[in-house]
């Protein structure tokens, strides 16, 4: 996978959400960076390698800020290598590894370990998020400053709620000294205790413990109040309900600057997909009602949602082949992220740029990365894809070591033709 000194991709349909550009164009790459981005018909580039895109879409590579791996600690689940291969195949050029590993990423040395291992793979950009509290225990603040120095992109206890408001207040307040981003899942842990699906008629019928939508709003109200008080940079992680969206919109109208992310699963599925206890749809937060899903899609369309994540959470068969309530939550998603997102374009009528924005420019701006745009000087992290090509997802064929994909067997439209990271072709 060596890079040509200069690479030109011509006759492409350039999609650059950062510039709101969707039209013909070409790019020239030298030493891993974009040196020319041409809108319209391309000049005759003098390059070592010229690829004729033949009208296919060329966009910035996807940036997935919520990727769980098994490494370190649970390599049979997923390694940094298998995750990187899956990312490259899915058109994801930057992944942010979540800190709920074993040991947890709560120490600058572990941040460096993950990034060093990731870099050595020479595939996609592997970055890490640090834990907000030591061991994700929710009590003692983690070394936010030292991890920030070591390259942590943001700080989160992932799916664990920091129950103690005073701890969260201190984490937010302390992080402000480093202008560090804190991410939290909005949830009231008491209302969701033991819950495995969304509350409602289906949960009752299936006899499963339900998580009420109000729990998300209550958690969000608390988190936003603390953000308002501390002035922290904040990401509302994995929003899933219409009610929480309304709370968020009100807070934004008041001038509160917080970012928000949603998982691709919550944009593509609803609670009915659980069917008769299909554990690949056991997710956390659980899949919600169709009204919630539609509200989330509208929020993507309106730009209320900044980031779409794959919420990649590999779980091996032995963790999924269990009674629904006992099965591990989560789904793999790196490799299916792009075709899944394109269903929002094909089926829900979202403009292609609106779909790509929260997958590229949105996360890049949030994390201060110079990627996610097709501008001269930016790293040549690129994907070439056919937005209309039909694909049937085959979980067994995924690069991920775990095959828990809720898209298994689904027919989607959208295929990654090529992925480049720093000008190197990695898929």
């Amino acid at each position, binding site marked *: 996978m060596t890079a040509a000194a200069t690479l030109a991709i011509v006759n492409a349909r350039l999609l650059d959400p950062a510039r709101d550009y969707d039209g013909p164009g070409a790019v020239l790459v030298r030493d891993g960076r974009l040196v020319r981005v041409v809108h319209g018909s391309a000049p005759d580039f003098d390059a070592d390698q010229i690829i004729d895109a033949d009208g296919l879409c060329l966009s910035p590579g996807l940036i997935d800020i919520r990727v769980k791996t098994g490494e370190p600690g649970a390599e049979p689940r997923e390694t940094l290598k298998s995750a990187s291969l899956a990312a490259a195949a899915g058109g994801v050029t930057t992944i942010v590894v979540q800190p709920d590993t074993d040991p947890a990423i709560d120490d600058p040395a572990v941040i460096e370990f993950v990034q060093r291992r990731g870099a050595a793979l020479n595939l996609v950009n592997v970055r890490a998020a640090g834990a907000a509290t030591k061991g994700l225990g929710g009590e003692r603040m983690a070394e936010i400053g030292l991890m920030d120095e070591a390259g942590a992109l943001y700080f989160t206890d992932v799916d664990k709620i920091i129950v103690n408001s005073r701890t969260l207040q201190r984490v937010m*307040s*302390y992080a402000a000294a480093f202008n560090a981003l804190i991410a939290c899942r909005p949830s009231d842990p008491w209302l969701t205790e033991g819950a495995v699906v969304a509350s409602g008629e289906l949960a009752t019928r299936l006899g499963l413990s339900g998580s009420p939508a109000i729990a998300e709003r209550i958690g969000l109200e608390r988190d936003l109040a603390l953000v308002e008080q*501390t002035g922290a940079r904040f990401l509302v992680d994995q929003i899933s309900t219409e009610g929480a969206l309304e709370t968020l919109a009100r807070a934004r109208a008041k001038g509160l600057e917080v970012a928000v992310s949603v998982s691709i699963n919550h944009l593509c599925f609803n609670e009915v997909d659980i069917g008769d206890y299909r554990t690949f749809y056991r997710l956390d937060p659980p899949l919600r009602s169709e009204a919630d899903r539609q509200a989330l899609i509208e929020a993507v369309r309106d730009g209320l949602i900044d980031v779409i994540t794959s919420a990649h959470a590999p779980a091996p068969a032995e963790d999924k082949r269990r009674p629904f309530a006992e099965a591990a939550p989560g789904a793999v998603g790196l490799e299916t992220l792009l075709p899944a997102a394109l269903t929002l374009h094909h089926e829900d009528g979202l403009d292609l740029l609106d779909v790509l924005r929260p997958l590229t420019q949105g996360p890049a701006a949030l994390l201060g990365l110079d990627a996610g745009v097709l501008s001269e000087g930016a790293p040549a992290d690129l994907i070439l894809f056919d937005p209309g090509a039909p694909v049937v997802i085959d979980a067994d064929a995924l690069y991920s070591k775990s095959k828990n994909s809720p898209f298994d067997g689904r027919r989607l439209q959208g295929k990654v033709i090529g992925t480049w990271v720093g000008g190197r072709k990695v898929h």
Partner: protein
Amino acid sequence: MTQPAQVTDQTIHDRLVPFPKSHFLAASDLNPFVTPQLLDLGDAFVDFNRQSSKALDVLHGRTVVNLFFENSTRTSSSFEIAAKRLGADVVTMPVASSSVKKGETLIDTAVTLNAMKPDILVIRHSASGAAELLSQKVGCAVVNAGDGRHEHPTQALLDLLSLHRAFGDVTSLTVAICGDITHSRVARSNVALLQMMGARVRLIGPPTLVPGDADRWGCEVFHDMREGLQGCDVVMMLRLQLERMAGALVPSTREYFRFWGLDREKLAWAKPGAKVMHPGPMNRGVEIDSDVADDLSVSLIQDQVEMGVAARMAVLASLSARWGDAR
């Protein structure tokens, strides 16, 4: 080299200035007129303390009671030596704070002590406002030797005396107070006194250790040492309670030292020739590096201990000057 003139009772009496209030509870009990005179008196006591004979009779026949509800060898010794050198009878009572049930018992103690007719009570207590409460219940002068996270005014005066001797004019100084501002009575007293004397004060620390409304104290607030120390003449480090390091307010000692501990590199961000202070006792390697703390060309920390006795002598003598019978 000429020897400094011998400091005698007469020297002291000539410089004595009546304290502006009947108690010394907070830095605001001082004013911009009397403070320079107290520094002048403190100067005389510094010279006096360097003499071989250290006995004066300014407080002869007077009784000073040191009432320390919180352990503090350093401050209680400093007060004890100061009172003894002025000729007072001194009783130091190390009252364990755990045996005291706050307000009521403190008043009981005050009433009991009052019956013994002391002239000056020096009190240290873990509750903010304890010195104030005591002062309302006794007939003698009360000196606050530290109450909770409220004030430690004699520390501020001794710090000022140290600066006065190191720099002469303090009005043009920019002083950075760094560390655990929230829990520091030293910081509160120093902010008040330094500002009263015209110095500019900055506060530097992690947001979890700086009160949210500290900017209303008339200080500039920084969370970044590099920004905060720029152009500072004095870097005053505060002691960190190590139990606050257990991830509650800052993640760890190593992270704290990395970002807010004073070492050579950070000191270089201050003005050339900047001086370093610390009220002690120091957590070496946590808030300050030994390399800086022990370098007498930049550190005033040893001076602060010496000035402590002199400044406290000045306060005790000045309080006695209000009585009109100071000898």
